[in-house]
Structure formats: C-alpha cells, structure tokens
C-alpha cells in the first residue's frame, strides 16, 4: 500500500522541474517539453485523487483523458507555430523572437 503523499510529492517535484525547464530553456521546443512535464504532473495528481477518493466516481479519470486531448492539441499547434517561426526567422531561440516586443 502506497500512501497518497508519495504521489503528491512526486508530482509536485515533477511540476517544479517542468517550471524550471519552461523558465530556463532558450529553445522554444525545449520550453514545450517543460510544459509536457507539467501536464504529466497534473495527470498523476488527478489519477491519484481518483484512486484514493471514491474509485466508482470516474471524474478524475475523465479529467485526465481531457487533459490528454488538450495536451495533444497544444503540442500540435505549438510545434507548428515553432516551425512557422523557424521558416521565417531561421531561429527557434526564444530570446531572439522579439518581433512583438518593441
């Protein structure tokens, strides 16, 4: 039997690593990788609360399925944006994409 705390602390750590990746990476694709880590941490939490709450109520798993769909949509649009920017500017470094800054 695994206490609920193990899952919660693991997903908190995974989420923090994802935050670090989003904030510290220069490459736009690597920033999207950090977002994936954060979405996975959220999903671990949702499924853990489903199992440790009332497993006959499926809301937790349904929410996780919806998160899967949103993650797929986010990656598809995000990566095509990165590719489109790369074709025009020949860079995917986030610091150099200051077109809308000044």
């Amino acid at each position, binding site marked *: *039997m*695994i*206490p*609920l*705390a*193990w*899952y*919660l*602390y693991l997903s*908190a*750590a995974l*989420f*923090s*690593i994802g*935050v*670090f*990746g989003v*904030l*510290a*990476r*220069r490459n736009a*694709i*690597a920033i999207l*990788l*950090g977002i*994936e*880590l954060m979405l*996975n941490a959220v*999903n*671990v939490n949702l*499924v853990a609360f*489903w*199992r*440790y709450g009332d*497993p006959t109520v*499926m809301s937790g*798993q*349904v929410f*996780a*399925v*919806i998160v*899967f*769909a*949103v993650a*797929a*949509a986010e*990656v*598809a*649009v995000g*990566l*095509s944006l*990165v*590719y*489109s920017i*790369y074709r025009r500017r*020949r860079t*995917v*470094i*986030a*610091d150099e994409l200051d077109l809308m800054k000044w």
Partner: protein
Amino acid sequence: MEASQIIFILSAILILSSAVLVTTSKNLVHAALWLISTLFGVAILYVLLDAGFLAVVQVVVYIGAIAIMFIFAVMLTRRELLDTSEQINKSWPMAAGVAALLMVALGALLAKWDGLFKLPAPMAEGVDPIQSLGIALTSPDLFVLPFEVASVLLLAALLGAVYVAMDKK
C-alpha cells in the same frame, strides 16, 4: 516494504532523473528521448493506481504521438540542433529559485493537510474501471458533452496546425 512500494520508488527515480535530463541536456533529440522515459515512468504509476486504460493511452498517445512529434520538430529545425551554444538562458538561477520556491511551497501546503497519508480503499468487487470509464464518457448524465467538446478541440487544433505550418507560397 511491499512490491508495489519498491516499484513506485524505482519509477519515481526514473521519472525524476529523466525529467531533470529533459530540462538540462544540450542535445534536443536526447531531451525528447528522456521525455519518453519520463512518460513511461508515469505510465507505470497509472498501472499502480489501477488506471490501466490511462496507462495504455499514455504509451500510445504521449510516447507514440507527442514525443515522436517533438523529435520531428527538432529535426525540422536542424540548424539549432547542431548549434552548440548554451541551451540554458542567463537568468537560470532565478528560474531555479522559482522552481525550488514552488516545490517548498507545495510541500509545506501538503504537509498541513491531514488526509496526506491516506491508504487506498480496495477496488470494489465486480466493478471494472475501464467499463465505468467508458460509460462515464458516453452517458448523457455524465461526461458526454466534455468528451464531444474535446473532439471538436482536436479537430480545431488539427486544422489550425495545418494552416499555421502550411507554406502559403
């Protein structure tokens, strides 16, 4: 120590170490491959949590589609891949500080909650989680509307991705 606890600890080590490598490795293809290993560890956790369907979806959708799409994107922007310059920006100590602060805050918040060391109730006899998930996703009383909205969202994302990435010339 039970077998499930040992499996949990091993997969937690797998998840956290490969997540750190996702955020720190210089070569982006390696980062995407470490993301696959992280996602696989999360799939093991779903199996431990009796969510077999989600474990399969994690492997098929996340590893089979999303991670492969990342590798494709890295290859399409190949010039940056060969770029040996710094992959972490100059303000990374601040980013590490924010992440550490978030971890400490979440840990303190969790430590205050008294339901923290709850153990799971045994799964009810004769109830198949996959069957009840299927019923929950298609029953009009439960979640059929969010399910359909998710399919519309996927269609919109598909069209949007094609339009944004299309060469208009």
